Structure formats: C-alpha cells, structure tokens
C-alpha cells in the first residue's frame, strides 16, 4: 500500500442498495481505496459484490450513501462520464468490429485524431502481445486472446479505475492461471487501480493487494491476502477462505490474546477473536495444513485424539480424514513425502497444532 493520503482515491461511504424497497442487497459498504491498489471483492453469489461494482460503474443507482473519486462524489455522474474502464466476464467485445476497431472505439468516442488512435491501438496491441491480430474479428480469437483484447480495451483510454467483473470465469484452469499472471503483470507495469470481483478465492489470494470478503451484503473482512488467510476475523471468513477444520468447544479462560477452549478431546489453547467471552460456546478453526500427525518433529502446543477414517491420494499431497468423538470430521493435509504415515482403518492418532494456528470464534 502506498502512503495514506488525507482523502482516499476512491471512497465508499456507507453505501446501501435496495432493489425492491424492502431488502438491502448492500448494507452500509465502507471502503477506502488508494491509487494503484488492486482490490478484490470476494464472496459467494448473491452477496452483493457485483452490485457494488455496478454502482461504481454507474449502471445501478446508489440507494443511499456516497461513492467519491478523489474527493468528488460520482453518485450523480452519468456512467459514460465516469472514465471507468470495465472488463466483463463474457468479454463484451463487439462482434461486428475487428480487434483494432474494438480498441479504437473508446478513443474515437473521445474524438481523438485518427493518426493518434492508430498509434495508441498499436501500442496496446503490443502490450497484450496481440500485434498480429488487429484485423481479426473477436469470433476468430481464442478465449485467452479475447480476454487480453478486453483488458487492452479497458486500459487504452487510461481510465481512472478499471473494474473487472469475474473476467476469468469463462476460461479453463490453465488459461486462468496464465491470465492471472498477465493481469498482475499489466497492473505492475502500468500501475492502474483495479476493483476486481470474483467468487474464486485462489484468484483473489494470488492477485490482490487487499481483499474484501462479502457475505449477505456486508463486508466481513477487508485485509491483505495473508492476513485474511492467517487471521480471519470470524468463522465465515475462516470457512470461506481456504479449507478449514472446526472443533466445537467452550471457552474456559481468556488471557489477553490467548484463550483456553475445552473440547471433548481435551483443552486447546487458541488465539482469540472479537466477541469471544469466557464460558461461551465457540468453534476453533485449524487449517488442514497446520495439523500434524504424531509422531512429528514439528513443535506443538495442542493435541487432539481422533480416529482415522481414510486417506486420499491427491498427488503432491495426501488428505487424511479423521473423526473426533463428537463425529466432527477433521482433514489433515500432509506433503507427499517419506513422512506421510500409513494407518489401519479405525486406528487412533494424535493431531498436533500450534496455538498461533488455532483461532476460537464465538458461536
């Protein structure tokens, strides 16, 4: 993140949206975005993230609250005057125009001289490595090529912001990774500000400066990827981002940042989270890769006793399924190396973890 200015580059101030005059789809969205930041709005479908994007682009009106760019409210600005570039999931390349004409469209709308348009189009075609494809129609391009054209078209008029609405959703896995790399490269090279909407957490984690996790119209947490993964603020984020195990228990004591949780299989020392009180029921989250099967050389603070159910060979790692006495399933991911143990079905095992990897959430 760059140094925080007094006025954020893009500010959402208590933005609300209702379609039916009864229910809020977006409930009081606040966020400050710095110039050049890559922000991802992540959430399940129907969580309100796309609505936020549409309000920002101007295709949906803001029910209440304010969206401001460089301190100036854009609530009343027509969408074509907002100077915001957009990349759509279906690319929205104009099928009756060639690639070059597609790129030239935003420039010709701005009445740029013809010669200048030609140079700029050539420059941006080169930027997305499609110089030889200017005369093709979008229909003659592959999915990845279309996506690159759509990117170039959103950047070519040097918009204040670029919005991307699940831009990689229609691509297959390999191409998606390639395009993630491509978008990150262009973002670093040109330094534009991106608001990116996706429901794919891998995409969000690998590309973003910060991620806002949406659920039910509310931002659950807005933080850099590592913090989101390591320090989720509530059970929804812990469950939504990555895989997680949850162990049911009761908080017996809270000492600063550390809580003691009593479970059926013994006491676990955990990190605390907001809203946790002594004596209350809670859920302890532990990531599958932060659990180790005894015997191990890893240091540990907690131990759970569980019954082995099965193991699934994935390739680069092995997934072990255990069951706690209260029939909670526990998954452990172990790297596929010599230390991966073998179990008989029904065998008992000790699952070890560190206090810093366990977080207790109020139930």
């Amino acid at each position, binding site marked *: 993140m760059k140094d925080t200015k007094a006025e954020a580059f893009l500010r959402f101030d208590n933005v609300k949206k209702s379609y039916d005059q009864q229910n809020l789809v977006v409930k009081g969205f606040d966020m400050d975005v710095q110039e050049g930041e890559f922000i991802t709005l992540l959430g399940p479908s129907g969580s309100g993230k796309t609505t936020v994007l549409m309000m920002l*682009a*101007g*295709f949906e009106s803001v029910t209440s609250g304010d969206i401001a760019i460089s301190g100036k409210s854009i609530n009343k600005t027509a969408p*074509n005057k907002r100077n915001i570039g957009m990349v759509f999931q*279906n690319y*929205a390349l104009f099928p009756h125009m060639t690639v070059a004409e597609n790129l030239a469209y935003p420039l010709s*709308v701005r009445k740029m001289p013809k010669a200048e348009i030609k140079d700029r189009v050539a420059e941006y075609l080169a930027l997305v490595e499609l110089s030889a494809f200017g005369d093709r129609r979008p229909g003659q391009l592959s999915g990845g090529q279309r996506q690159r054209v759509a990117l170039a078209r959103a950047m070519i008029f040097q918009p204040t912001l670029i*919005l991307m609405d699940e831009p990689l959703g229609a691509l297959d896995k390999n191409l998606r990774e390639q395009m993630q790399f491509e978008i990150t490269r262009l973002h670093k090279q040109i330094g534009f500000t991106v608001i990116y909407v996706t429901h794919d957490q891998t995409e969000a984690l690998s590309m973003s400066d910060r991620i806002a996790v949406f659920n039910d119209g509310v931002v659950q947490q807005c933080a850099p990827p590592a913090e989101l993964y390591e320090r989720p603020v509530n059970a929804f984020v812990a469950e939504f981002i990555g895989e997680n195990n949850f162990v049911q228990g009761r908080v017996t004591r809270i000492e600063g940042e550390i809580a003691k949780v009593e479970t059926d299989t013994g006491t676990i020392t955990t990190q605390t989270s907001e809203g946790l009180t002594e004596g209350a029921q809670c859920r302890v989250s532990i990531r599958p890769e932060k659990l180790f099967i005894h015997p191990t050389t890893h240091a540990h603070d907690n131990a759970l006793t569980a019954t082995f159910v099965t193991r699934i060979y994935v390739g680069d790692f092995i997934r072990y399924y255990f069951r706690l006495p209260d029939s909670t399933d526990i998954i452990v991911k172990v790297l596929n190396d010599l230390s991966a143990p073998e179990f008989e079905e029904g065998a008992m095992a000790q699952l070890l973890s560190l206090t810093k990897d366990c977080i207790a959430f109020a139930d």
Partner: protein
Amino acid sequence: MSNRVSSLSSQDAANARRQMRRRRTQAFLFVVPLLVFILFAFVAPITTMLFRSVYNPTVAELVPETLAMLEDWEGEDLPDEATITQFAIDMKRMANDRTSGRFADEINRALPGMSSVVKSTARGLRRADDDELAANGAEMLLEKNDRWSNPATWRAIRSAGQVYTSSYYLTAVDMEYDSEGDIVQRDTQIYKQLYTKTLKMALIITGLTMLLGYPLAFYMSQASPATANFLMVFVLLPFWTSLLVRTTAWIALLQAGGVVNSSLLWAGLINEPIELLYNEFSTILAMTHILLPFMVLPLYAVMRGIDASFMRAAISMGSNPIGAWYKIYLPMSLPGLSAGALLVFIISVGYYITPALVGGTDGQMISNIIAFHMQVSNNWELAAALGSLLLILILVLYWLFDRFVGTDNLKLG
C-alpha cells in the same frame, strides 16, 4: 501383433460406408413426406403458373388449318381467298361444336370489340351448306361483317394463334404489340402503377412495423422473464384469432358509423364522418397490425441474445447511450431487424385478404388484380404473367438485399 495394422482395411472402409449410407437413408426418409408435399403443393403449381403465362394453345387448337395457311401471309393486305375460305369452314365447325365462344374471347383479348363480331358471324355460318361454304366461303364471311375485311383482324388471329407468346407479359407491364408488331405502351396504364403502389405500401408497412416493433422487442428483451412472457402472449394473440376476424374488426372500427367516427362525432371534433375505410389508409393500418408479430418475433429472438454487457461496455468507454445504441446495439440487432423486414415486406407484397376486405378501390394491391383475373375475367394467362412478375420482383429484391445486407446476417430465432 503384426496383423493388427492401424490403417483402415478395405473391409473396414466398406463397413463404415455402409453405416453412413444407412444413416443418410434414415435421415432422408424423415423428410420424404414433406418433399412429396412440397412437390405437389409448391413446385408443381409454380411451374404450371410460369408455363401458363407464356403458353396459350387455345386458338392454335381451334383453327390449326387457318393458322397454318396464315403463316405464308405477309400481313399487309387481306389473306388470300383460300385462307379466308378455310377460316369460314373453321367458323362453322366451331359454331356447331360450341367452341366459338372461347375463340371469340381469345380474339377479343388481342383486338377489343371482336367478341361480338366472331359470335354473330358464327351464328350466321352455323347453318351454311358445306359445299357452298367450300366454294364461296370467303365471300360469305366477308359480307357478315366489315371487320373481316380489315387486315388487322387477321393479324390479331395470327398473333392469338401463337402457342408460345410474350403478350401476357407485355400486358402485365402495360405494353402491347401494335399492328406492325412493334412493342408500344398501352393507352391505359394499370399494372405498372399497381406494382408501384404495391411496393410503396409494402415499404410503408415494413417501416411502420419496424417503428412499432423495434422498441417493443427491445423492451421485452430487457424485461424480466415474467414480464417478457406476458408481453409475448399479446404479441402472439393475433395468431390465435382468425385473420378474417381481425380484419373485420377493423371494418367495425373504421366504417362511417363505426367506433372511431362515432367517438369523434360525439367528442365534437368532426361534424360528419371522415372516410377511414376502403382506402389505402385502412389497408396500411390493418396490415401493419396483422404483420407486426412477424417483425417482433425475429427481433426479440436476436435481442434476447445480446447481453446487456455490450451496451454497458460501450457506455463505460465514454459513449453516450444513443451513440452506443447506434454503433453497437443496432449493428448487433440488425440480423433480427433485416429478417423481420424481409418477412413483413415479402408477405405484404403478395397480401390478398386484407386489401380485398378493407382496401376499397384505392387500397387494392397487385394480388387483388391477380385474383380478379383468376376468378372474374377468366384470363388465367394474364394472372400467371402478373404472378410470375411478382415472383421475379421479389427474387430481385431478395438478391439486392443479399448484396447490401447479406443473408448470412439473417436470424429468425
């Protein structure tokens, strides 16, 4: 194993070929009933019509000997006596086997006024003595009527006797052969004017359905599925009522004592009923109403396939909504628009029932004249020629459309 070569053996190829042939035969059998139907109901009648417009054997069958003798005639003075005598013999035969009426009709078409001349002459010659006729036939014929002494009459008989003739086509474009055999304009100009009017009305109707249909189809494509389905029922509603009922409903609305006139009178906007019915106005109005679904349906089908993101993309890039519509949405919806326009235009060019019912004399279109020649004047050859010209006209227009818009741009759904 060495004998398991990966290439196709001749046995394999034969098997594959036989399987493919069986699949093709099966697929073909599905369309055989339709093919037979089309052959009988479409290809055969059109071929007959095209043929009939140039083929006219009636006169040639009635007076073959006379025609054969007329072939050597130069056409300036009267034919020689032998020819006229032969014709007198033919007239007696026709009078007796009651074919002189048909002959009279045919000659009358080539030379107006000849019908009564032929008929009275035939009556006069019916009881003539065969021997006297053979000896003195020419004189007997010539004294029956002055017109037999006019070479133009004989020229008319000779030209009517041509089995293959282009004269119906000439009539259909208001031309004829003059006495010297040159092609000249006819005195009365009917058909060219009618074709022009038909095309003009079809164009107006197409334009009106576009104006009404485009916004509706756009609204439906943007509306929620429930609203779109509800509106679709109204678009399709006309198809569920008889065409005749819908057209007569317009009569009830527009006639002098009809709903529109009585409302206007009651409101004091007019003092006497205005003429809304039996003119071009009522024809265009009723046909626009009837043909509107043919515009809306292909338009809606195409527009529903245009994602909202295209317009949004254009607008986000700085284009105003109207510019974005013109540059992006219109070209993308063009396949539907041109399909709808082509459908409405072609249907309305050949439309019959509505102009017949509400058109009066002003609102008649070419199809009404074709029907007139089929049913009233019994001139099937002219009707066929007019119909063939209509067909050619539509083919030419379709060709032009293909040149300038392109038929691969057509999309019916």
